[in-house]
């Protein structure tokens, strides 16, 4: 990673604490943030590619007035980047998303949710 490359903490609109750390309403938001940090550190995309993808989602019409959908936009931007970079297809991502949902529903309490729990896999 380029030492002069800004960190993802500087992402436009990122909710932060008074100390300047990112804050998350739910665990999945922190996971999405962490994945993006790793991909950026590995040089999978540059800061400007990320900032552009995120801004594109943030400035779409129909956003919630209270910005509570900030990380929805974040995940949409990340999804868009990984498909544009041909890491996966939108179709594959959608199918896998549904598969995880079926896996969760099929997992009884007390067992970890695993992708292979999807009855259709």
């Amino acid at each position, binding site marked *: 990673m380029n030492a002069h490359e800004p960190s993802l903490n500087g992402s436009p609109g990122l909710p932060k604490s008074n100390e300047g750390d990112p804050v998350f309403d739910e*665990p999945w938001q922190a996971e999405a943030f962490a994945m993006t940090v790793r991909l950026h550190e590995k040089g999978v995309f540059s800061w400007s590619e990320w900032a552009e993808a995120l801004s594109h989602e943030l400035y779409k019409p129909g956003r919630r007035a209270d910005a509570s959908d900030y990380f929805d936009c974040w995940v949409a931007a990340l999804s868009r980047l990984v498909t544009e970079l041909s890491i996966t297809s939108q179709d594959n991502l959608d199918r896998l998303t549904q598969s995880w*949902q079926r896996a969760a529903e099929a997992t009884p309490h007390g067992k970890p949710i695993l992708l292979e729990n999807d009855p259709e896999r």
Partner: protein
Amino acid sequence: MTSEDAMHNHDDHDDEHDHDNHFSDMQARVKALETILTQKGLIDPAAIDAIVETYETKVGPRNGARVVAKAWSEPDFAEWLRSDATAAIASLGYTGRQGEHMRAVFNTPETHNLVVCTLCSCYPWAVLGLPPVWYKAPPYRSRAVIDPRGVLEEFGVTLPETKKIRVWDSTAELRYIVIPERPAGTEDLDHEALADLVTRDSMIGTGLANPAGDAR
């Protein structure tokens, strides 16, 4: 206590079974991204967990510490928490799926409480904050039930032999919060300062509340 006493019977709630676990669209989408990126060798889930853990104190409202502080300073609230934790916690404005159906278990000089959970999707992070990474490991759960004293010692918590340890297993319907013992020498602290002493680990029973000197 024996492991039989410690474990809840998961078969009690067959009618609820289908609703045990659910991923929101966003949760599922993030899992899908993680799966693909891991398969492609672009991320390592352990590295992601490690990054997330650094934000442990930055996720969710983490209002459990304030619940504990209030219980320490207000006997009436403590009593309410003991009899109906769900309502007592909700009275502070802390509601939401993960905060529902809570039960508070109180540490005493005689008894220490420890909570286990498989993190299927019922971990009450809104109240407790993010779970520790090792919480996900199946060996933690099984060992905590069989040898809670040994597990606690590994976390640096050595309890007197005479202290009983009770292990509580979260169910789909009921989640636990441990009310740790109030540290000595905290009589003059206000709610805010008391809440600062209440760690995530102390509310799942793998730690104790911090000593008084740690208040900010």
